[in-house]
């Protein structure tokens, strides 16, 4: 937007913003949510911001029981962009292609 106005816009880019960039936040947690849970959510946010916490960090096991991410391995964006399986605990099948 600003770049377009200032003539700095360039194509062929992909922006993917998260908690770290201030693009994702969780707000207005209901009063019913227990304190420790709220605290945990805050910890996660802090961890995502400073990079000390990764959601997609192994070991993560797929629905079929096979490991999809080895222990301590952290998924990169390419991995995240191609997820087409369910992790263990999700029931049913991933619908095949659109």
């Amino acid at each position, binding site marked *: 937007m600003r770049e377009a106005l200032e003539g700095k816009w360039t194509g062929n880019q992909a922006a993917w913003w998260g908690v770290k960039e*201030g693009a994702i936040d969780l707000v207005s947690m209901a009063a019913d*949510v227990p304190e420790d849970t709220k605290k945990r959510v805050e910890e996660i946010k802090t961890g995502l911001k400073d990079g000390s916490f990764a959601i997609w960090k192994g070991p993560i096991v797929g629905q079929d029981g096979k490991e999809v991410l080895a222990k301590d391995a952290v998924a990169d964006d390419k991995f995240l962009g191609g997820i087409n399986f369910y992790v263990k605990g999700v029931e049913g099948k991933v619908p095949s292609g659109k």
Partner: protein
Amino acid sequence: MTDFSKRSVIKLAALTAIAAAALVGCGKKEEPKAEAPAAAPAKAEPLKIAFAYVGPVGDGGWTFAHDNGRKAIEKEFGDKVVTSFVEKVPESADAERVIRDMASQGNKLIFGTTFGYMEPMLKVAADFKDVKFEHATGYKGAENMRTYDSRTYEGAYMAGVIAGKMTKSNTLGVVASIPIPEVIRNINSFTLGAQSVNPKIKTKVVWVNEWFNPPKETEAATSLINGGADVLFQNTDSSAVLQTAEKNGQACLRLGQRHDRLRPQGPPGLGHHQLGAVLRSGRARGA
């Protein structure tokens, strides 16, 4: 029914995971300091900006959020811009027609806010080289087209942590939209978040195959509740899931987008540009 009181259920329903998608270009952060623009245009015509929306602006979710972003752009840039939008643009050949019209009408920056506009936008972009195209959540770009997206799975994970703590049945339900990687990733992230605090979690999923279809979303939510899910998460756009959950005394988390404030505390280069924070109800992606 869980034993949540009705009152607490309503409050729970107010839980919102906010995925704020910055609509506007904060470019690559690593970009070296640009030289001063060679020559600023002597007199600036207002930049015409058009938005193609998949849903109605009143959906309270993805489209609503984008439209708030559009309004925020108007507010911030004043007479430097002229904005317009077309709502309820189907993800079909119609999209190409609408987007082509926008380009023909002199819009120089066009936002396509859903995944399904990717191919139509690419086609139009190839014909209008002097128009810039911003596409939400896709994976193809061009010289004059780029994509923007937000890591909604982070919100999904946090919603999962809460759901995992709140559930009594250890069964969660997701009303899912269209089976693209982002939505599948959100279901997984939601589940991983829940399992991080409650290893017994099982997640049931019902696919609606649309972003916005209140009757189908209601049906999906009802079937999940009947199947034992006591906390629902929606990755679709309407408020139907929330309403169904409320009616049945269940909790519901919406992953949504909401434009609730400009964020002065954002990181350098981004905060200021964060015009359109969107809160999507349960939906991961502006498809």
